[in-house]
């Protein structure tokens, strides 16, 4: 990061995750949760599949993120606005763009740390058999980018309201819609009131479709682009919202 302001703010925000209970609660629930879901004794679980791969691990990733990411993102701006510290932040020589980017990156890297905490899974499958490490890597890459996209959504709703609970709920709802956008029930519902091409657009926004194809080991840049563009758009939205607050 060349920009010193972004770097300083990033460091403060990131260390904040390691100092507050939120960071640890998140890590513990995420690691235990994903571990349990992967090995749970139902169908589609790790043992049932009799295969040294992380398919069952990555399959639950979107659903873990659906509830945990909004918990991380909800305080990004709501907290600053509620406690008034945003007045300190934005009267320092910092642009809103820099602040949005720094906060987003800090939360994203934190999720990255959480993801890297799952490395025992990889060790396990390597010990048990001969997994395709390329596929594993792609799975992690896809998870990381999906997390980024959901964090950007959460950051947007955090900038929208001073209330963390509202920000959490809105983020869960919108994330759910985005994840499920390609599924038949949602598409059926949409098609009852909108024309075909809108349905097609909506389907192409499906986070799950993009995630799945990568997690299955199909590397295509278009999937990464999808997540990147999503991140940029939602961050841009936060910048617009925060600029709007200055006017009201």
């Amino acid at each position: 990061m060349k920009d010193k302001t972004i770097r300083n703010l990033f460091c403060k925000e990131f260390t904040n995750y390691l100092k507050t209970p939120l960071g640890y609660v998140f890590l513990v629930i995420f690691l235990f949760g994903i571990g349990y879901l992967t090995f749970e004794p139902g169908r589609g679980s790790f043992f049932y599949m009799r295969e040294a791969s992380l398919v069952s691990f990555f399959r639950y990733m979107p659903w873990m993120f659906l509830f945990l990411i909004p918990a991380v993102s909800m305080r990004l701006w709501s907290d600053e606005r509620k406690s008034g510290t945003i007045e300190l932040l934005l009267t320092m020589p910092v642009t809103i763009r820099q602040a949005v980017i720094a906060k987003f990156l800090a939360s994203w890297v934190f999720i990255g740390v959480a993801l890297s905490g799952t490395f025992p899974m990889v060790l396990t499958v390597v010990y048990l058999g001969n997994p395709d490490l390329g596929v594993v890597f792609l799975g992690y890459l896809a998870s990381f980018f999906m997390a980024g996209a959901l964090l950007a959504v959460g950051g947007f709703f955090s900038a929208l309201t001073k209330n963390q609970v509202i920000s959490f709920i809105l983020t869960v709802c919108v994330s759910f819609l985005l994840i499920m956008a390609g599924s038949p029930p949602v598409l059926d519902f949409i098609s009852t009131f909108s024309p075909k091409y809108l349905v097609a657009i909506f389907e192409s926004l499906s986070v799950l479709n993009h995630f799945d194809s990568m997690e299955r080991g199909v590397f295509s840049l278009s999937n990464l682009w999808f997540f990147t563009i999503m991140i940029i758009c939602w961050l841009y939205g936060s910048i617009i919202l925060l600029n709007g607050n200055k006017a009201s």
Partner: protein
Amino acid sequence: MLEVNSISKKFGDFQAVNNVSFKVDQGEVLGFLGPNGAGKSTTMKMITGFLDVTEGDATICGKSILNETLEAQRNLGYVPENAPLYEDMFVLEFLEFVGKMRSLDKEANKIRVIEVINMCALKDVEFQKIETLSKGYKRRVSLAQALIHDPKVLILDEPTDGLDPNQKHDVRVLIRELAKEKCILISTHILEEVEEVCDRCIIIGEGEKLFEGTPNELKSKSSKGRIQDVFRAITTDQKLQGVNL
């Protein structure tokens, strides 16, 4: 060094600040008075670039807050109303963070942090978490973060609110000390404070400037020399005995 040119703010249809202008020079402390809801904090938020102005402009050391926001903010120290702080940081850590954000380099930052800690008498709490501080200490931390980059212009929104009499006195002495080389805009509800620290004062009510002059001019309007009578007469349009506007 601080110039405010017919600044206005509208929240929807509500005119919070209407066409207020003033100037503060180096070495001067300008008191900013007015009843609750008069628009003091709103004006200050606009001067610091936190809120956009609806009309008008403010310049800080010649830099317009509208067009050269970051440049203007570099010369500015600001204590917001109620002194909000990052509660889960430690005092020292917080001040170092602010110093870094103010682009002090590492060595200079260390030295400045020690200086402001001494200036604001924070030595006893430097390793304490901000959320565990008493109100008075929080105020002083807020003042310290505003001073860390030695700004030319200081905007203080009720900096002595909630301090005990001794601390009030200390902060006033500090402000007088700082005023020698800075220009300071300070809002307050304590009228003795105006006499004690301010060279000039303005009174606003319902967003409009109602009075500008020295504390002595203000005082001389009352035959008994009671500033609070004059303040009331100006801001409420009441006729008060012995007050001659």
